[in-house]
């Protein structure tokens, strides 16, 4: 069978379109369709992966060859990220299957499909304007998902998200306009080739716009004001969607542009500094949070800071480490959000103090949360350990010893607040009265898959490293990107 990267965009878009219609007839079908779609796409991703590893697949839409038409670029990096997105998506769908019981179901799944479509679109598109479209799709779907619970807080959070997000879109669009004005093309590879000729001043201008635009989405301080609210007010699986998919997509975009279009030394340094600041402030803020999901949100921001540091070092090894951390963070944070979702559900409150003793009552869910916590702190034998180790070694090799110390310092803070929660789960008297409701099997299976991935990667990190190596190379190697992107 002949698959094409187009499926990644087309199928979920189509599904999103289909879901409201099917919803008229059958609620079960609405629940099933996203699963089928994601399964299919996972299959596609896995079967395309070996091909992409050999040579990036460039798919041309509507018959115009690049740089004139819209093209999709499915290289090793895209393959890696898309596979990851599909995995996360699948797990979240499985989890949502029983978790999301509030109407309108079809809207939830429609928006979910849109996020998947948008995020994968960002990751595989080769066209800068096309990326804007996908960015908008993702963002708008994300706004709506934030407000899905339709309560006051959700609406407020969604509004904030919308407000800040619109800045992002505006700046991005501005940057696209400037690029087009300066280079006359919208194909990324083509731009990359022509960017040499652009004078420094507009180049910097564009770069700043990009940085701010994507910085907002990838939660860089001080652009990440939207994140804590959005994470904590959206339904729990959506927290996973944000942390594992949306943010990762814009991080990808930012990094792609940084490496392919600009490649300024000073830009990487700026990213590194911003990453350090983001990480520190987020971890410190997480320390005394009262709500578990808000705490996770800050932790998520902190992790993004860590990833940014690794990207900011800009060496091959550090990019590898960053991608590893991207993967680990997506998996672990999703697991944490999913587990937290049921913990909040069972305790009936978003407060951390309400979680006392839940470990006795809901042992498996709590266990998954604890596992996720240990993994994200970076303890062996979980996956988080290796990526943190890689980041540290690569950062140190890059010569940023101060950053190493700061990363470790924030690691200690992280350990403290996670262990406090875990301690509450297991070592306090059980206060909850919830003995009837159980975590459904689908939720447990979803978390179980992630836990197994964490453990597996923790014990056999080299397998994932083998995948990351070409992906990192794909990101760093500008010449190859131009070569393949322009179909030379």
């Amino acid at each position: 069978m002949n698959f094409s990267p187009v499926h990644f965009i087309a199928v979920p878009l189509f599904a999103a379109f289909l879901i409201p219609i099917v919803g008229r007839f059958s609620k079960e079908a609405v629940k099933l369709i996203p699963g089928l779609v994601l399964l299919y796409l996972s299959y596609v991703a896995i079967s395309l992966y070996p091909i992409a590893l050999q040579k990036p697949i460039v798919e041309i839409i509507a018959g115009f060859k690049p740089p004139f038409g819209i093209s999709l670029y499915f290289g090793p990096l895209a393959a890696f990220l898309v596979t990851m997105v599909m995995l996360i998506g699948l797990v979240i769908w499985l989890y949502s299957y029983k978790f999301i019981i509030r109407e309108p179901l079809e809207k939830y799944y429609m928006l979910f499909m849109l996020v998947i479509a948008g995020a994968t679109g960002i990751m595989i598109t080769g066209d800068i304007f096309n990326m804007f479209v996908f960015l908008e799709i993702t963002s708008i779907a994300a706004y709506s998902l934030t407000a899905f619970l339709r309560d006051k807080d959700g609406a407020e959070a969604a509004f904030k998200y919308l407000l800040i997000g619109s800045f992002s879109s505006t700046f991005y669009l501005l940057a696209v306009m400037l690029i087009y004005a300066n280079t006359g093309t919208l194909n990324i590879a083509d731009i990359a080739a022509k960017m040499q000729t652009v004078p420094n001043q507009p180049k910097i201008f564009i770069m700043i716009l990009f940085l701010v635009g994507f910085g907002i989405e990838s939660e860089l301080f001080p652009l990440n004001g939207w994140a804590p609210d959005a994470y904590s007010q959206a339904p729990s699986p959506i927290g996973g969607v944000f942390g594992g998919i949306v943010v990762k997509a814009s991080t990808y975009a930012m990094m792609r542009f940084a490496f392919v279009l600009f490649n300024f030394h000073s830009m990487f340094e700026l990213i590194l500094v911003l990453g350090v600041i983001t990480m520190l402030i987020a971890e410190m803020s997480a320390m005394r949070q009262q709500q578990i999901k808000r705490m996770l949100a800050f932790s998520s921001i902190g992790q993004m800071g860590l990833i940014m540091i690794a990207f900011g070092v800009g060496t091959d090894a550090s990019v590898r480490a960053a991608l590893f951390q991207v993967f680990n963070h997506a998996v672990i944070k999703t697991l944490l959000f999913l587990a937290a979702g049921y913990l909040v559900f069972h305790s009936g409150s978003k407060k951390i103090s309400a979680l006392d003793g839940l470990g006795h009552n809901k042992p498996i869910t709590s266990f998954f949360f604890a596992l996720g916590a240990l993994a994200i702190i970076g303890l062996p034998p979980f996956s988080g350990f290796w990526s943190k180790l890689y980041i540290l070694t690569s950062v140190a090799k890059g010569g940023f010893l101060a950053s190493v110390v700061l990363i470790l310092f924030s690691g200690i803070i992280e350990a403290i607040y996670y262990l406090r929660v875990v301690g509450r789960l297991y070592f306090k008297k059980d206060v909850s009265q919830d003995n009837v409701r159980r975590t459904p099997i689908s939720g447990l299976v979803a978390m179980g898959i992630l836990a197994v991935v964490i453990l597996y990667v923790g014990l056999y990190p080299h397998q994932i490293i083998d995948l990351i190596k070409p992906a990192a190379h794909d990101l760093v190697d500008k010449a190859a990107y131009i070569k393949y992107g322009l179909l030379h």
Partner: protein
Amino acid sequence: MISIPVLLLLIFAAGLLAFIAHHTIPVLRDAIVIIAITIAGYIVWQLPGQTSNVNFSIGMFAINWGVTEYSQLFGLLIAVLSFFALIYSSAFMANKERLGYFYMNFMFSIGAMFGIVYSQDLISLFFFWEIMTWSSFMLTIYCCEEAQSVGLKYFIFSAIGAYSILTAIVIIYSGLGSLQLANIFANFGTMSIAAKLAVVILLITGFGVKSAMMPLHVWAPDAYKMSPAPYTAIFSGALSKMGIFGIGLVLFKLAAGQGFYPYVQEILAWIGALTALFSTFYAIFQTDAKKLLAYSSIGQLGYIITGLAIGTPLSITAALFLTIMHGIFKSMLFLSVGAVYYRTGTTNMNEVSGLIRKMPYTFFTALFGIITVAGIPPLGGFAGKWMLYESLIQSNHYFLVIVIFFASTAAFLYLYRFIFSMFLGQEEKETENVKEAPLRMIVPMLILAVSTLVFGVFPGLLLKPISGAMGYLGNFQHAWETSVLFNNWGSEIDLNTIVTSIGGVFIIAWILITVKGYRKNRYVTTKDIHTSGEVPTGNENLTYAIDFYKPFERALGSVLKPSVDKLYNYTGKLLEDSFEHLRYVYTGNGQTYAMYVMGFLLILFLFSELIFGVAL
């Protein structure tokens, strides 16, 4: 071929199996762990016969496991102590809950310790180090709700330690590009002086946390107190030795021969001595037996660190000898406290007294334990102490030897208090029905107790592997015979003669005092004492246990007032409060956030020349 991977796999699998077994077939649980540790003991025993290392790579790091004589010494200690502790815990933990959790973490930490000692590269060492940290953390918080904050403190300090090690590792990696121990040891000198110093300091800090070196010790007393007794034995007996293991490697394999080595030695020796001194002082005024022993443990580790830091062959022999002995006697003591806890439900020394008649074997173990700790001949502690003093004096550390001796003498105080308050004194009404601990707890304790006597008479049994380990550390050699020890000035002590004469006189006196007037001895209760004619009633306890060393406390005056612990707590609180202020950067107001975005944009534009080198 049975070798290290099998060993590790066996232990970790046993941990998992025990966890599963606890939830399915609880009967198998104890059997699994004990069988596993027995087999592991055998594997460890025959490991030196295998010369080839295990090599493979994870990701971009090459992993290398192998046996050295140095690691074999620690490996055997771990195996033996774990074996006894697990047998003990099969009785001690019998009716506790969450045993799957307990045994899993127990086995994991044992496995991690094996991993540490057999690692020949820093990555796997750190990997196992972290596993050891969290599994021991899990057991620290196992008991109860109060253990929460204790566990957190332990974890924070462990994290600080682990991250110092990690920092050192990345510095080494960035400097040498290899993390194989052999490579590092060979090429360490080629790094820059600053990097070398940083690595040594960071590694010593990291390892020092686990070996409770002052001022990084504050986690230890509470953590030891909170963990269940069989694990406390391992915690203090074996786990803290991992720090010693690391410090030994750092000192003799990395720092030795560098320009700053003498300074490091001197500072570390003094840190060790002061650790010993102050922890002894703190131990004297504890009311909880486990905390007392914990401080004692810190002090003993201080001696060991001093011994290592001095770095003469005799002092290293002393340090390694004490390492093994400390593993044995501190496990014994913690196990005997555990036995008391098992029967009476408390470790508070003011609450129990007069257990000697109820629990004679436990008392016997504790007695041997304290005599060994005190370093009184003829038991094993003496040989170690003797070598330590001799080496200190003969390497011109006169004031160090005074400090160490001071600590060692003051140790009698807490040791006596420990055994007096729990086992001696008047019998309590509440402990009337207390029985001796079950056989499975007694036997390991007694075997360990007898072993102290054996090693006291024949220290050569231990000195053989130790001299092998010293050969690995740097070709140190010191002459010894099976029961004769020599110092550098030509003096010797003949332990065989010493023990014979002590034993002979003791037995003759014993026979004399027992045979004469045998029939006229009247055994009376502890209530029948001279109290100016007053008769104590049954529920009155006259044992003098509270504020036992008040005069000594008064004599010390304000020496003990300043507390590192308080300083840490204060710093921690200060930091957390400042974080609290910081988190209001996130005001929750959309307009503020928008302003942040615009402000950030503006800054980038305005200062673009500064940041990017191009003015806009």
